[in-house]
């Protein structure tokens, strides 16, 4: 690495320019990291969906309820390992405007629901405490942090759809457990007892929102789905069974082509960045025509000159890009910028790797033209021009 001093003094030559170029690369890669996280947020769940979990919903729409009696029939369908259910609660906590947005609240069967979602990590003691308390609620880490709840707190939630038999809208719950999970797990959920809910609600007894079904062989998913739906064909509440992945994909599709628009933004940013960086490097080579000619005169080969310019570009992009990705990752880890509207928000490792590839690619693409120019430089011309 005997050329380092040479490289270093080249970069130091126009300090302001080097620093600004570096900073714009940093910014671009912070953006890159953010956009990757946003893309994940909008396609939430699609990539991590369990292949052995199916969703059985009402055929017309997921907001139509299904009878509780379907549970046993589904459980008896060949290929089904276990069944649990959940329903939409849609309550408000404190402020009606910001209250509970982004928090999925559902009455569930504690045992079978947790068995269905082994990715929810909860201690044995808390699990038992939740199962034992009819008014108990299991809360995701993110939600607990957002409202400052801890185990033992009593939380009043205002039902908007559901009221109690006595006409009151307020449902009170005891926080009995806080679950965690890795970054791909939705840690916003608010899960309470279906039995308590069903008994206390004013109307709608014996209905649930949807069923979650675990099957033995993911390859049989389509067949088992058809069998489940066949159970209820021509009944008043026909069903539609899809894989969890298909459901998540469907939901992402419902939000629409925001993802495509984000790709456009990424492309625009990178095009701009390429121009800025490429231009800066080209400029610095142009200014050094005479020096490069001298280097060649004293015996530097064409290849060495090419490498020198290219490495200079790479140093700039790798330092800037590395910093940008690191800052981006740190900012993303600190939480999503919409204050809880995007429950899953993280930088996937795959995108981090793509980012690093981009960094190298950017250095190569931005450096190659000026490097080739420098390589092709004829000593006589260059010295005359200078």
């Amino acid at each position, binding site marked *: 690495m005997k050329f380092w001093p040479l490289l270093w003094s080249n970069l130091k030559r126009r300090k302001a320019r080097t620093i*600004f170029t570096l900073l*714009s690369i940093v910014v*671009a890669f912070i953006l890159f990291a953010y956009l990757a996280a946003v893309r994940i947020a909008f396609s939430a769940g699609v990539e991590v969906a369990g292949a052995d979990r199916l969703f059985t919903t009402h055929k*017309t729409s997921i907001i139509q309820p299904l009878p509780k009696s379907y549970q046993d029939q589904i459980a008896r369908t060949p290929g089904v390992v276990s069944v649990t259910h959940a329903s939409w609660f849609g309550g408000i906590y404190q402020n009606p405007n910001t209250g509970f947005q982004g928090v999925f609240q559902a009455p569930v069967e504690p045992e079978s629901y947790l068995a269905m979602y082994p990715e929810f990590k909860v201690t044995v003691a808390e699990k038992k405490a939740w199962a034992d308390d009819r008014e108990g609620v299991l809360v995701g880490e993110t939600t607990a942090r957002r409202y400052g709840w801890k185990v033992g707190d009593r939380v009043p939630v205002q039902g908007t759809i559901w009221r109690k038999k006595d006409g009151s809208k307020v449902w009170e719950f005891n926080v009995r457990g806080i679950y965690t999970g890795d970054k791909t797990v939705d840690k916003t959920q608010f899960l309470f007892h279906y039995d308590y809910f069903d008994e206390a609600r004013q109307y709608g007894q014996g209905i649930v929102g949807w069923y979650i079904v675990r099957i033995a062989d993911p390859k049989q998913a389509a067949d088992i789905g058809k069998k489940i739906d066949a159970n209820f064909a021509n009944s008043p509440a026909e069903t539609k069974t899809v894989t969890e992945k298909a459901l998540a994909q469907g*939901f992402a599709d*419902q939000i629409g082509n925001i993802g495509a628009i984000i790709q456009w933004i990424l492309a625009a940013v990178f095009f701009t960045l390429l121009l800025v960086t490429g231009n800066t490097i080209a400029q610095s080579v142009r200014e050094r025509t005479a020096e490069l000619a001298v280097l060649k005169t004293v015996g530097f080969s064409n290849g060495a000159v090419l490498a020198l310019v290219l490495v200079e570009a790479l140093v700039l992009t790798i330092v800037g890009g590395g910093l940008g990705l690191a800052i981006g990752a740190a900012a993303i880890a600190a939480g999503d910028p919409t204050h809880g509207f995007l429950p899953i928000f993280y930088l996937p490792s795959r995108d981090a790797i793509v980012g690093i590839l981009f960094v190298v690619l950017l250095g190569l693409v931005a450096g190659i033209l000026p490097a080739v120019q420098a390589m092709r430089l004829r000593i006589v011309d260059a010295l005359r021009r200078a």
Partner: protein
Amino acid sequence: MLKWLSQVFAVTGTALRTIPQRRGPSLATVVGIAGVVAVLIAVLSIGEGFRKTLQTAGSPQNALVMRAGSDSEMMSVLVGDSVDIIAQAKGIARGSVRAGEAAVPLSSAELFVVVDCPKKTTGTPANVPLRGVQPAAFAARPELKIIEGRPFEWGKNEILVGDGARKQFRGLDVGSQVKWGENVWTVTGIFTAGGAVWESEIWTDARVLQPSYRRGNSFQTVVARLESPEAFDAFKDSLTKDPRLDVMVQRESEYFGNQGRTLQAIIRGLGFILAILMGIGAVFGALNTMYSAVAARTREVATLRALGFGRVAVVVSVMAESLVLALVGSAVGAALAWLIFDGYRTSTLNFDTFSQVTFAFDVTPSLVVQGIVFALVLGFVGGVFPAIRAARLPVTAALREA
């Protein structure tokens, strides 16, 4: 003063005339700023279009009655007899809803459900709102116009489809039949509603919809046409004070104005971060360009200074160049955003009702102005330091260096 001005003009003129000689870096700045402005305007135009769709819906002369504590139409329930009580409240306009019939209170009890329709672009199912209405619904929404086909007939399994829904979802053209649950529905017509959210919906007779969704004699909301916007308070009081009812009353325009908060918050939160980060990046680009512009003009600037031109003239010329580049960039960016995104139709989920809203991106003049102002700020910041540097250049040193 005059001399000073002529100096400024002379130096600025040279600066601008020589931009073509510094084509590369200048172009990089223009493109950089164009990119920032285009992205900024595009992102905000999503929010703008979404807001417009929701806010043009709803007239201040209409009141919307829901069960107290409901967050959205989707969550409300009103049973049959309270609907009749509401129709008798003070302040409701009267009119005949069908030609030749006697005048009745203009109130429409409505059901709001969602049905599955495949999206045209992806073929995947989406929740499309299906609204059951009563005859007065049309009198309460005079902006609604049937542009194709005919109205549905009351009591039949017929539907009217909003133009936005027809364009975004499959199988909703006049004459086609769709099956939801146990019923088969025939599309009899297409309507527009001046861009309002109803264009995303499908309408039918509430009395036909009730049994097919097992709603008994219940509705979700009542829309009432008032005698005048001022009659609202009287109407609201008479309902909220009625012990037989437990309802909340809003102006229809207020209700829709509050809808779409989740999406708005997401767009604003993300749009803000995007704009700030891209702006910072663009400022660095502009700084680079202007420093190199100053470097390229060192000899010229020093010569001018030696001839007796003042520092201010030099500062102004550098700033002017930076601002002109920013202006050109923002114009290109705004034009791009307008060409590509204005009127671009799409649909997305309204998290408040869990149903699809179709809307068009709206690049408004005020967004264009915001984009240009933002670019000028970038141009200013990107020009000011190089300008000071140019002005501080010691004349003799600069002449020697060049």
